[in-house]
C-alpha cells in the first residue's frame, strides 16, 4: 500500500480537532444540562434505521436527502436523518402505554445528502427536545421558552426566534386553484412580492391576503395589525401567537420576532413553527414547531411539539 501522505475524506465530511472539538462537546454538555433541568429524558436511538422510519415521518421529499444503502437482507437502511422520526417510533412502541405528556431529548449527529461541492457538511451535530401528548398553548410556550434557554446556555446573546403559525397562510393558499399553488408558494418562499402582486392582482377573498400576510414580520404590534386584514380562517393561528406572546417574559420577548412569511414545512407543521437565527451566520441555527399529525403516522395519534438546534452552526459563531 502506498504511504498515506494526506488524509482523504469524502466530500462533506470533516475532522474536528482541538478547539473545534472541545467547543462542540462543551455546547452539547451545556444544552443537555438545560434539558435535564427541564425534566426531559434523553433517548439514544440507533444511527441506522430502516429508511421507512424517516419517510413515514418526513414524507417523500426526505427520500433524496437520505444517505442509504441495502442491508444484508436487501432492506434499505438509512443513516439517522433526524431524531424526531426515531423518537416518534419509540414513543409509539416502547412508550405506547406510558403516562402523557412525554418529554424526550437527544444529542448527536444527523446525516443528510447536500448538494455536491456546496460547502455543506453531510454530518451535523444536533441537540433537541420533543414534548409529546400535550396540544395546548402551555406546551407551545414550554418549547419556545426551552429554545431560548438552550441558546442562552450556549453563551450566545444576539439571536432571534422567528415564529409563525401554519394556519395563517393556509386559507389563502387553499383558495387558489390547485395548479397555481406551487408557483405562488415559490414566490412567497423567495419573498418575490412583485411577481406575487402581479399574479394575484385580481384576486378576491382569502387569496388576496397572500399579497400582504406573508410580508408581516415584527413584534407583537405587527401581528395585531395583521389581524385586521387576515381571512377568518387565519385568525385562530394568529390569536395563538398573541396568546403565546402574552405568556412570555419581557426578556424572552426581546428574542421573538413574529414572521408570517414562512411557507416551508407547511405539510409538516400543524401549529406554531419557528426558525432560530444567530448573528454572524448565513443560515438558520435551529428550527421547531408543532406537528400533531406525526405520531398518527406511527399508529399512536397524539399532539407533538419540538425543537432541534444545529450545534455546528452555533459553534462557529460562539466564543
Amino acid at each position: 500500500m502506498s504511504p498515506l501522505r494526506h488524509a482523504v475524506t469524502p466530500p462533506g465530511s470533516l475532522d474536528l480537532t482541538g478547539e473545534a472539538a472541545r467547543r462542540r462537546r462543551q455546547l452539547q454538555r451545556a444544552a443537555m444540562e438545560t434539558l435535564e433541568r427541564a425534566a426531559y429524558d434523553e433517548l439514544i436511538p440507533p444511527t441506522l434505521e430502516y429508511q421507512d422510519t424517516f419517510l413515514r415521518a418526513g414524507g417523500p421529499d426526505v427520500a433524496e436527502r437520505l444517505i442509504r444503502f441495502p442491508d444484508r437482507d436487501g432492506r434499505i437502511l438509512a443513516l439517522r436523518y433526524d431524531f424526531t422520526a426515531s423518537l416518534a417510533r419509540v414513543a409509539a412502541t416502547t412508550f405506547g402505554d406510558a403516562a402523557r405528556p412525554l418529554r424526550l431529548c437527544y444529542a448527536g449527529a444527523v446525516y443528510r445528502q447536500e448538494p455536491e461541492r456546496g460547502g455543506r457538511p453531510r454530518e451535523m451535530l444536533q441537540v433537541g427536545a420533543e414534548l409529546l401528548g400535550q396540544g395546548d398553548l402551555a406546551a407551545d410556550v414550554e418549547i419556545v421558552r426551552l429554545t431560548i434557554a438552550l441558546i442562552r446556555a450556549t453563551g450566545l446573546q444576539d439571536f432571534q426566534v422567528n415564529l409563525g403559525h401554519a394556519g395563517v397562510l393556509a386559507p389563502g393558499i387553499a383558495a387558489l386553484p390547485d395548479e397555481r399553488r406551487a408557483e405562488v408558494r415559490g414566490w412567497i418562499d423567495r419573498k418575490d412580492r412583485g411577481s406575487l402582486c402581479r399574479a394575484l392582482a385580481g384576486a378576491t377573498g382569502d387569496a388576496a391576503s397572500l399579497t400582504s400576510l406573508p410580508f408581516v414580520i415584527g413584534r407583537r404590534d405587527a401581528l395585531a395589525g395583521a389581524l385586521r386584514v387576515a381571512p377568518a380562517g387565519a385568525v385562530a393561528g394568529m390569536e395563538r401567537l398573541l396568546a403565546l406572546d402574552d405568556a412570555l417574559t419581557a426578556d424572552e420577548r426581546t428574542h421573538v420576532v413574529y414572521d408570517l412569511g414562512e411557507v416551508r414545512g407547511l405539510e409538516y407543521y400543524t401549529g406554531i413553527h419557528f426558525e432560530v437565527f444567530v448573528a454572524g451566520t448565513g443560515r438558520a441555527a435551529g428550527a421547531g414547531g408543532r406537528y400533531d399529525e406525526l405520531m398518527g403516522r406511527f399508529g399512536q395519534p397524539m399532539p407533538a411539539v419540538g425543537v432541534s438546534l444545529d450545534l455546528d452552526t452555533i459553534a462557529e459563531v460562539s466564543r
Partner: protein
Amino acid sequence: MSRLRVALAKGRLFDPSVERFRRAGAEPAADAGRRLLIPSSDPRIEFLVVKPGDVPVYVESGAADLGVTGTDVLRETGADVLEPLDLGFGFCRLSVASPADTPYPALPGGITARVATKYPRLAQAHFGAAGRPVDIIQVNGSVEVAPLLNLSHWIVDLVDTGDTLKANGLVERETVLQCGAVLVANRAAQKLKLDAYLDLMERLERA
C-alpha cells in the same frame, strides 16, 4: 442599523447595477482600486465585486447579505436564496443553437447529440423535460466554437443580439430560459438585518 454587504457581478451586469445603487443613494467608491470590499456613499452599505458565477454562492452562504445576479446563473447553481426584486435590466435568453447547415433536432445517422454549455444543469433539465436524451459537455468559455471544432453538435448559451451565433454559422433553435438581473438576499440576513434590508429594498424599488 446593521451594515449590508452587497455582492456585484463583474461583466455585463456591473455597470447597470452600479447605476441602480447610485440612484438608490449607495454609490460604490470610484477609487476602490484592487480592494476586495468597496465602501459606498452610504456608510451602511459596502460592495464586494466577484465573478458572475460566484454571486449566488456568496449570498447563499452569508458571505454577502445581498447580491445582483442573472437568473441564468441563479437557476444553474440552484442557490437557496431570496429573490425579492426583479431589477429590470440585463435581459437575454438562454437558447439552444446548432450549425445552420445541419438538420435540427434529429441528427443524421441516429446518433445522440452532444451539447456544449456553461450551463450543464439547465441544459440537462431542458432536454430531460422534453424527453430528449443528449450528452452534455461542460465548457467554461468560447462555447460557440464547439460545433465548428466537432467538440459538440449543439450548444446551449446566452443569446443577446444573436451576432456571435451568426458569425459562427449557428442558428438559434429554441429558448431554454428568459433571463434578467435580479436582486438576491441571504435568508438569515433578511431576518437578522431586517430594518436595513427593508430600507434598501424600498430605495431600490423607487430608484
